[in-house]
């Protein structure tokens, strides 16, 4: 739209600070990319063509504008980083281009809409912040602002707070915590978007703004421990927020610990074949694989299936990196559909996830493919909740 070709000094500085001098052009990044062949994104050629600007290698053809715009298709699964034998981090190059486009104002309208909403309303949906805790209306959940002390903060996240389907994750989590007798609070209207997608989209300035808002609240309410059911929130609170003296755990870690201490009593049998889908932000980004599996194995009646591509090799659902707000024109299919096919072929009855993004993407795929009667997509806390006799 407004991009006019070559990069200016500031932009070149950003590109030159990245590490890609050791790129072999082996192509492992592209081969492992969940949106390659579905979209124009090709990490390998992106690296090669960027070299035109940051090194003396003028034998490489320069980037074109449409190639730069292909970066919006990235789901930030980080496969390209994991599989690169040379520590090149193509994902960082993609994020750098996103930052450049953001600073130029050249952003697809649905993405700029989501970013503007996050700035104005604290969530990408543009719904009033006063409605952020509506999911908890009839559950009598403690708000940090009304407590003198907060032992544990449950950070809910935007998707889980506002999306009707994802809200069930929060409700399930609350029921579980109450059942176990854990004392916790939520920020409610004081909670702001964690900023994981904001960071992934390259809007560094906005990320600082939303992070600051949340950190201010953590300090105000003297928070020492945070748990969250969203893998994106978990990743960003743990790794990007530089929180001192605050422990951050994903719900699967927290609940797995409680199982170790025998503090959870699963009363109802769930006689189902359950496959666990590793969310990228839990597995690939943070190496958490065992805890969710331990939880499922401890639920009576559950047959735990291991999907063909699992753990570090998990298939990205396609919802990260801002993809919830961006569809590529002409994209044949979304990565989530491959995942559903895999689960069904394996005979899974429930596909368990640990992230609202995965939940929504995978459930959408199930509906699109017409498999509602074959496969149920549930968050792991929804499964636990059923086994506790609740919901």
């Amino acid at each position: 739209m407004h991009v006019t070709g070559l990069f200016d000094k500031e932009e070149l500085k950003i590109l030159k600070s990245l590490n890609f001098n050791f790129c072999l052009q082996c192509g492992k990044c592209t081969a492992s990319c969940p949106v390659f062949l579905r979209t124009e994104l090709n990490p390998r050629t992106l690296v090669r063509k960027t070299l035109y600007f940051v090194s003396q290698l003028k034998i490489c053809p320069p980037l074109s504008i449409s190639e730069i715009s292909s970066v919006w298709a990235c789901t930030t699964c980080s496969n390209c980083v994991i599989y690169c034998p040379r520590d090149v981090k193509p994902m960082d190059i993609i994020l750098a281009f996103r930052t450049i486009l953001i600073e130029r104002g050249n952003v697809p309208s649905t993405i700029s809409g989501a970013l503007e909403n996050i700035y104005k309303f604290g969530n990408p949906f543009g719904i009033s912040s006063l409605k952020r805790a509506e999911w908890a209306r009839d559950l009598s959940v403690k708000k940090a602002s009304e407590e003198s002390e907060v032992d544990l903060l449950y950070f809910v996240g935007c998707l889980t707070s506002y999306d009707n389907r994802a809200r069930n994750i929060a409700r399930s989590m609350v029921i579980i915590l109450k059942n176990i007798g854990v004392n916790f609070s939520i920020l409610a209207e004081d909670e702001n978007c964690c900023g994981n997608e904001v960071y992934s989209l390259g809007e560094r300035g906005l990320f600082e703004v939303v992070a600051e808002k949340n950190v201010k609240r953590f300090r105000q309410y003297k928070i020492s421990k945070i748990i969250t059911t969203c893998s994106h929130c978990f990743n960003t609170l743990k790794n990007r927020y530089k929180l001192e003296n605050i422990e951050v755990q994903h719900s699967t870690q927290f609940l797995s610990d409680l199982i170790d201490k025998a503090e959870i009593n699963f009363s109802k049998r769930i006689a189902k074949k359950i496959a666990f889908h590793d969310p990228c932000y839990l597995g690939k980004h943070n190496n958490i694989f065992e805890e969710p599996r331990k939880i499922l194995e401890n639920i009576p009646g559950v047959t735990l299936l291991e999907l063909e591509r699992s753990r570090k090799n998990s298939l990205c659902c396609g919802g990260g990196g801002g993809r919830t707000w961006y569809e590529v024109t002409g994209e044949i299919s979304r990565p989530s559909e491959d995942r559903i096919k895999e689960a069904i072929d394996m005979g899974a009855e429930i596909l368990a996830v640990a992230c609202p993004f995965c939940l929504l993407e995978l459930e959408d795929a199930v509906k699109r493919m017409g498999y509602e009667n074959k496969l149920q997509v549930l968050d792991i806390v929804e499964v636990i909740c059923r086994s506790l006799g609740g919901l």
Partner: protein
Amino acid sequence: MKEILVLAEHRLGKLRDVTFEVLTKGRKLAQENNARLTAVVIGYDIDPLGEELAYYADEVLIYDDYKVKEFHSEYFRQVLSHIILDRKPEVILIPHTSYGLELAPSLAIELNIPIITDVLEISFENGRFVVIREYFGGKLKAKVTLRESPRYIATVRVGVSKSEKNESKGQVTKMQNLDLMDIPYKRVIGLIKPPPEAVDISSAGIIVAVGRGIGDAKNLPLIEELSKAIGGVIACSRPVVDMKWLPKERLVGLSGKVVKPKLYLAIGISGQFYHVYGMMNSELIIAINKDPNAPIFGVADYGIVEDLFKVVPQLISKIYGKMYGEENK
């Protein structure tokens, strides 16, 4: 109070419906205040228009001049200024339209007459000029008054009221030529008619309309599916056309089409007046919107406060289920 003046609006040789609406409103105001209602029509070769207007006013003033054969704010203003200074009407009503807004504010400044726009109701209360109009896209209304003045100008919202013809015919007066000052710095070159369309939504019996809530062009296939399931035609509100997700010929509203289908499904449409204007006389209106305060619920027969992406797929399956004779799930 002596006189209420109403400016008639016409295009391509015909009086627009808006004119009769405003005249009917003017008639009511005139009756309440014992005043005369005078219609003013400005153009070229417009005697027949004047005759038609005579059934809606006590008097019709025709200004016929080649210089005003096209609507042109500067020429029209010169004519109206002359009439207002000459006859000193207490109220001047102009339809709230593109032409109206191109003219009325400058008329107000030139003659120093307080002005208010897009009014729904007008009255005099204790000698004060009082109107009712909407604010914040229709979420609120307000009672508004203008500073006391010998005269007031108001542009009147159209598409909201009926027009009523009088039994008797009023007097028709042709004005003398005013030797209008030439305006070289503003030129009306011509009118562009809308192109012939592939689809004419105004003849559809069932319309499935989308608004900003659809979020992106990528989500249109879902609506197309619904439209197919129900046997309807797709239309939209302004933001969808602005973003170029659908072509202009699908636009319903003030700057698009006015439709009166058997069923109007408003999906993700907030319901601001400029859209509602185009569909409010539909036989059955069902609205789906996440915002419980959306103005569309003020005009719909049935409302669903829910995420359209949850409702529409379910609705599609229910419709197909029903058609294939499936039992209710």
